[in-house]
């Protein structure tokens, strides 16, 4: 039985329970657009937690979104490890020169103190600020990089693959440090008010790693890490493919999975049935040149293929919408979810007779 109007929290919890809420929940995973709302540069926006709180609250209202995203930028964890973050005017901050340049650097690596590292403290302050504003009405999504995927930024992708294949002992040592940090970082965000943690793990995707390798590495790391996080998690593949490992991902104990637009959403939804809620999978890169009609068509098609029965949150496929995506497209996506996503889904859209 669907209620007439649920809060975002009720809507999301219902779909996570693999039941149909009042409508398909919408997770517009916006970070940089908050700066645009406040008329600030991206660097200035992320310099104060108050900016992020205000930006997220404005975006929530503007797009009738179903979540708040306390995520600042991926290299915030690299910054915490002493690395460089390069801010740009038109895109997400990028990690600079790797912090790990030699094998000895791995042996010497120490875990940042989560509460006393300024860049992490800003994220925690923003999370607390968001919680004060919405209490339990809207889920707040915190973010961690998986211990298995973080080394791409810590040491560079190529050197990390070399390490994984050629230095198993050092790889395990790095995982141990990253795991301890990840657990502490996730739990600090939960304590600050995050409702759930998005565990970004693109290196585990079959785009990057074979299933055989995943089971020996990313899967083990995820099982151990997620078990120590004191709240619900969603694993996100950040555009990577994961259809062949969906059962394995479910076995890590996560509740949801962010999937790629490169995969058939019907097949993904079928494989996830009653095990994982599917988050996705609009193409964020292409989105920047969509018309309003195209946005509506993509949303309608996606809801038709993945919406039935709940267990589905409409979102982009990367976990962060590019700065270049215009407000009109975001508005068209939101309007379309509100129009076509009401349960029971309209006849025709869901393929029902």
């Amino acid at each position, binding site marked *: 039985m669907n209620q007439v109007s649920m809060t975002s929290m009720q809507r999301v919890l219902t779909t996570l329970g693999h039941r149909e809420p009042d409508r398909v929940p919408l997770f517009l995973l916006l970070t940089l657009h908050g700066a645009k709302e406040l008329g600030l540069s991206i660097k200035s926006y992320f310099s104060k937690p108050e900016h992020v709180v205000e930006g997220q609250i404005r975006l929530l209202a503007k797009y009738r979104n179903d979540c708040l995203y306390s995520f600042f930028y991926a290299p915030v964890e690299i910054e915490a490890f002493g690395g460089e973050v390069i801010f740009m005017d*038109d895109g997400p901050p*990028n990690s600079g020169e790797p912090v790990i340049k030699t094998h000895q650097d791995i042996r010497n690596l120490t875990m940042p103190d989560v509460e006393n590292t300024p860049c992490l403290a800003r994220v925690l302050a923003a999370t607390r600020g968001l919680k004060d504003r919405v209490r339990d009405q809207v889920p707040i999504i915190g973010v961690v990089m998986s211990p298995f995927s973080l080394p791409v930024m810590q040491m*560079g992708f190529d050197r990390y*693959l070399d390490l994984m*294949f050629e230095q198993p002992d050092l790889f395990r040592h790095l995982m141990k440090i990253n795991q301890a940090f990840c657990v502490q970082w996730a739990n600090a965000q939960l304590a600050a008010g995050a409702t759930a943690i998005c565990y970004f793990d693109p290196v585990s995707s079959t785009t990057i*790693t*074979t299933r055989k*390798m995943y089971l020996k590495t990313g899967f083990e790391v995820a099982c151990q890490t997620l078990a120590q996080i004191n709240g619900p998690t969603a694993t996100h593949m950040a555009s990577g493919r994961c259809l062949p490992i969906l059962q394995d991902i479910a076995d890590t104990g996560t509740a949801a999975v962010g999937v790629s637009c490169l995969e058939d959403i019907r097949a993904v939804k079928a494989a996830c049935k009653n095990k994982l809620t599917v988050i996705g999978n609009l193409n964020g890169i292409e989105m920047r040149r969509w018309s309003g009609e195209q946005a509506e068509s993509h949303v309608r098609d996606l809801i038709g293929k993945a919406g039935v029965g709940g267990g589905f949150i409409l979102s982009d496929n990367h976990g962060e919408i590019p700065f270049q995506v215009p407000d009109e497209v975001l508005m068209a996506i939101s309007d379309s979810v509100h129009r076509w996503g009401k349960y029971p889904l309209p006849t025709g859209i869901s393929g029902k007779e």
Partner: protein
Amino acid sequence: MDRRDKMLTAFKHALLDVDRLAARQVMEQRDRDMRPIQFAEKVVLPVLEQIGAGWQDGTLALSQVYMAGRICEELIDEMLPPADPSRKNQPKMAVCMLEDHHTLGKGMVYAVLRAGGFDLLDYGVVGVDDLVKRVETDRVTVLLISVLMLPSALKIKSVRQKLIDLGCDVTLIVGGAPFRFDDQLWQAVGADILCENASDVVPAIEKLMEEKK
């Protein structure tokens, strides 16, 4: 299965298993009259192309493509050192990342080209102005740009414009994640050729060389 097919299959398995010794064995057991550059052309490149295609259709992983490229680069570098006269007579080429420190894609392109007997300059991570200046100074005629982030991809448009302003006749070959998610992006940024994976680069350059004959 003839001898060459067996060789290709054995080499592919060795690469996918990240088995350097087995890959070397295939190389060492080739026919006596097969010169190193022929091994690169007839065995290494076709296998790397198959592996690249496997990644594109989702059956193989990027880690396999990367390790395969690295093993091949090591083998070919040993047989054909950088200044070896048997290396190809080719256009002046350079590869780079544009304001992006994710260097995996660039490394893979570099490895595949060198494994195929080509030489090229590696500019590493560069900004737009620095890149344009180096291309002009080095008289590069084929520029390969690999990107991971969308903003970097969009900056290629500025590279193209500045090269035109300087009167540099450069073929711009691009590749990387943003182009895989938007099939119109490469044209929108003014590139001449899109390579969807690293091993597409060699046939693209061979075609260019053929056209310029």
